[in-house]
């Protein structure tokens, strides 16, 4: 069995070299398919990062009346923290709010004069509420209508980021749909090219195959080199795709930091951490596709 496996491997490599340009075309098509899949993966990572970045900036500012005492504010904080949708609640006391206001407007004489005229601190305590995701804000806003402290709240300030998130998702979903369609087309072309490569391989080796059959080669021995050759081409395609994807994401990563800050979009990290699974999975999918395609070609053209 070991000897036969070695010979099958040898014949598979012979097939590869004898049909070198055909092998190049097949590998190129497989690489294009894999690159498209990986672009989709990059897009997915970037989208998730962008959405998470936007969501991270979303907050609801809850302004209490200046007469509201700390205990009531504390009760509101406790209440909000108990909500599953709330990620964090920051409390700004009336004095802190006053200091922050003065600091912000110290250059504006008119505002500072108006503040002096009011005499004392006109600000009440403020809560800055962060949610787990953009969808959660509506619930948090509703929760703040709780009769327990509804009348203590002077104002709720909430910028509607949901629309931004929806727009990001909408755009990326459209790109993803296009990418999936493109992957499907490339995959179909790849299947046809693999089919054709095997067909031509059988045609080129028809004499050799005929002699193999004549002298008692098993069906496995005749078929296996074609399967192995396609496996090898799939592995080569995955290797080339990985060889392109890794440097490209490393080049792209700093460019994304313009939008995502110093931490970047995390695509290089994503591929480093999951590279084995990503490319291993892609090889498995490609292997299954090429096995099916090769089997179809052999069933049609290789009469053993």
């Amino acid at each position: 069995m070991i000897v036969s496996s070695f010979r099958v491997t040898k014949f598979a490599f012979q097939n590869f070299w004898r049909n070198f340009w055909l092998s190049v075309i097949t590998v190129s098509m497989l690489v294009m398919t894999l690159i498209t899949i990986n672009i989709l993966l990059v897009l997915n990572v970037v989208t998730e990062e962008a959405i998470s970045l936007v969501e991270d900036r979303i907050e609801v500012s809850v302004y209490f009346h200046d007469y509201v005492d700390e205990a009531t504010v504390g009760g509101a904080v406790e209440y909000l923290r108990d909500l599953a949708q709330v990620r964090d609640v920051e409390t700004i006391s009336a004095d802190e709010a006053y200091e922050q206001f003065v600091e912000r407007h110290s250059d504006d004489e008119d505002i500072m004069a108006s503040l002096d005229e009011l005499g004392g601190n006109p600000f009440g305590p403020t809560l800055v509420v962060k949610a787990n995701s953009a969808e959660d804000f509506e619930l948090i806003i509703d929760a703040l209508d709780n009769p327990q402290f509804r009348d203590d709240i002077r104002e709720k300030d909430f910028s509607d980021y949901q629309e931004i998130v929806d727009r990001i998702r909408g755009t990326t979903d459209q790109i993803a749909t296009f990418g999936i369609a493109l992957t499907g087309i490339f995959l179909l072309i790849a299947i046809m090219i693999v089919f054709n490569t095997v067909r031509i391989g059988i045609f080129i080796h028809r004499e050799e195959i005929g002699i193999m059959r004549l002298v008692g080669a098993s069906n496995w021995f005749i078929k296996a080199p074609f399967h192995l050759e396609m496996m090898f081409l799939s592995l080569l395609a995955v290797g080339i795709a990985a060889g392109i994807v890794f440097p490209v994401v490393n080049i792209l990563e700093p460019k994304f930091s313009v939008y995502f800050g110093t931490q970047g979009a995390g695509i290089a990290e994503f591929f480093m951490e999951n590279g084995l699974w990503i490319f291993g999975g892609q090889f498995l999918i490609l292997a299954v596709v090429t096995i099916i395609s090769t089997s179809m070609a052999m069933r049609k053209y290789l009469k053993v």
Partner: protein
Amino acid sequence: MIRLKKVSKTYHPNVVGVKGVSLHIPAGEFVSIVGKSGTGKSTLAKLLFAEERPSSGVIEIGGWDITHIHNRDIPLLRRQIGVVFQDFKLLPQKTVYENVAFALQVGGAKPRRIREVVPKVLEIVGLHEKASRYPRQLSGGEQQRVAIARALVHSPKVLVADEPTGNLDTLNTREIVDLLQKINEFGTTVCLVTHDREVVNRLKRRVITLEDGKVASDVEQGRYKL
């Protein structure tokens, strides 16, 4: 031992290859199957090594009923039946040694066995000194001897030779027939399909004559009668 019972082979739509052929060829016999072109000689040969399946009847080789042989069992049969053709069917990019070794390689033989067997069969066919030559560097007779050597590597019980001298001159034809006789003397059953009168008459062995796909005559120590 080869036994055929009322074997017929009909090709689509209604072309008769052989019809109702019944034969018994004992082990170690040398049989010439003769007949005009299109009388079913090659069809009969193909039925023997399961290249074709009979439309009806029964074929047994060495007690093995191969009438409905499964595809996966054909390689086993082919390792027991050596086959030689008119067009030699050698691989041009392989040397004489490699062509012969190829039959063992694809059968899963170990390198050691290949190193033992190939020189021996090349010696039998008289080509041990030309082992490193390519088919194009050999005469037709020598190429056919390579094909015979390749057919012998599995030590087959039966050798089916389908018009092995069809492409050869008289001298080479004699050499090939002598070689087939030598192989037969070692105990291998030889089925020689030919339309060469000289060959058949010189052999003076059993002759089965086919006409229109049927056995017209079956004579011990026969002659070419058509």
